[in-house]
């Protein structure tokens, strides 16, 4: 997209008009498929508008971290893969940031009961690996990655030694921490920014909420006032219900 178009989007944003016809707090269409990777213990393919991500969960035994002998482990890895964009600098920045923010949302909400993933204290525990791949980036990878990871976790089933039956991960559904990203353009705040909106935004704020706020991440060089932050948090709690219903609906067995 050219510079002129950016000006145009900025001007429209001031009047709360978006290039794709959405209202300020409209999300793009969400498409979710689960069970798409047969070698994973849980998986999800998610489209948020034109943004496409693939997430896979693997549950594997390993040695616990020395300072947490009685807990399982969580490892989140995000790759804005070379499929998704031609710009290396974008990819590296996104890979680190999106991975870490997604990790925090899941870890801090205590979604997974890590104590239940212990096989033998201090010797053997289960590790939950979440790998997320961006296949196409049309903005808001943060929310797409977060929702794909959560859906894959909800889809995850694993075998315990000595038993043939697969069991679900010990998840507390109340703690499903869903990410909501807002972009600020001038004085307008837009939910679920598209790629041009994200690129020209002054500031970006991602908020993951379950029953509490579990993680926040401000991006880009601009600023938010405390009132604006509060507004975004309020909106996130409002929007959460529909998003959560969607995620749960797609993983219902």
């Amino acid at each position, binding site marked *: 997209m050219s510079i002129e178009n950016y000006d145009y989007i900025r001007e429209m944003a001031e009047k709360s008009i978006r290039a794709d016809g959405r209202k300020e707090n409209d999300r793009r269409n969400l498409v979710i498929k689960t069970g798409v990777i047969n*070698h*994973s213990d849980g998986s999800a393919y998610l489209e948020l508008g034109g943004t496409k991500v693939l997430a896979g969960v*693997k549950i594997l035994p390993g040695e616990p971290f020395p300072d947490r002998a009685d807990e399982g482990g969580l490892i989140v890895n995000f790759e804005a893969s070379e*499929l*998704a964009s031609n710009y290396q600098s974008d990819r590296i920045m996104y890979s680190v940031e999106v991975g870490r923010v997604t990790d925090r949302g899941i870890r801090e909400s205590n979604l997974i009961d890590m104590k239940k993933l212990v096989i033998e204290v201090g010797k053997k525990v289960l590790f939950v690996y979440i790998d997320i*791949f961006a296949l196409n980036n049309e903005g808001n990878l943060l929310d797409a990655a977060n929702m794909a990871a959560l859906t894959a976790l909800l889809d995850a089933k694993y075998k315990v030694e000595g038993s043939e039956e697969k069991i679900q991960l010990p998840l507390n559904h109340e703690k499903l921490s869903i990410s909501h990203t807002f972009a600020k353009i001038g004085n307008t705040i837009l939910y679920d920014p598209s790629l041009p909106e994200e690129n020209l935004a002054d500031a970006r704020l991602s908020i993951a909420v379950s029953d509490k706020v579990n993680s926040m991440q401000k991006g880009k060089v601009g600023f938010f006032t405390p009132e604006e932050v509060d507004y975004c948090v309020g909106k996130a709690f409002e929007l959460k219900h529909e998003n959560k219903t969607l995620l749960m609906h797609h993983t219902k067995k």
Partner: protein
Amino acid sequence: MYEERFDKRAFDELRPMEAETGLIANANGSARFRIGNTEAIAAVYGPQEVKPKHFEKVDRGIIVCKYDMMPFSVPDRAKPGFDRRDMEISDVITNALSRAILLKEFPRSMIDVRVYVSQADAGTRCASLTAASMACADAGLPMRDLVAAVAAGKIGDSVCLDLTKEEEDFHEGGATDVPIAFLPSKNEIVLLQLDGKVSREDLKKIIEMGKLGAHKIYELEKKALKRRFSNES
């Protein structure tokens, strides 16, 4: 002895296939190819400026191909990143594509081909090459032909087409795996590897069977590309 295949297929039967192009809007061309439980996704960026600069060729373009596996694509977990196996496969795929694409048309430029395996059940390099060639066609690059790749081989005493992982690991009598890629309308082999042990006669049969398989894949590739471009008009 291997008289009936684990998945009950005929010995010269391919696994069910799916092909789709244009799924990555950011890329100049893209494709997904699935055969049984093996799936590869490819994106093509370019022709574009050559980096690093000293790889530039004044009389033709170059292809840089990257093959990698997603961590969840295998039964355990593939460590993220580029290892020696990925390097080798990237190299053989690059060679195959270099023959297919008319590189003389792009002096001083580079075509970036990236292929990721999302699910692996043997034959990933062949699926990757097939996906990559469709992505190149989707990008509108001038090509001598599409590449159609498939693994053929011998399990026990039987010559087989499109081996699964379970078959590759068959111990009794051993298994031979021959990844093979054709430019079907030119009858040119652009990728050929072998591991195992087979006689000259058997190898001839394996290649013949690979050729038949490649032609079936070729038809599917053409269909997927036609479908895409008829939708767009």
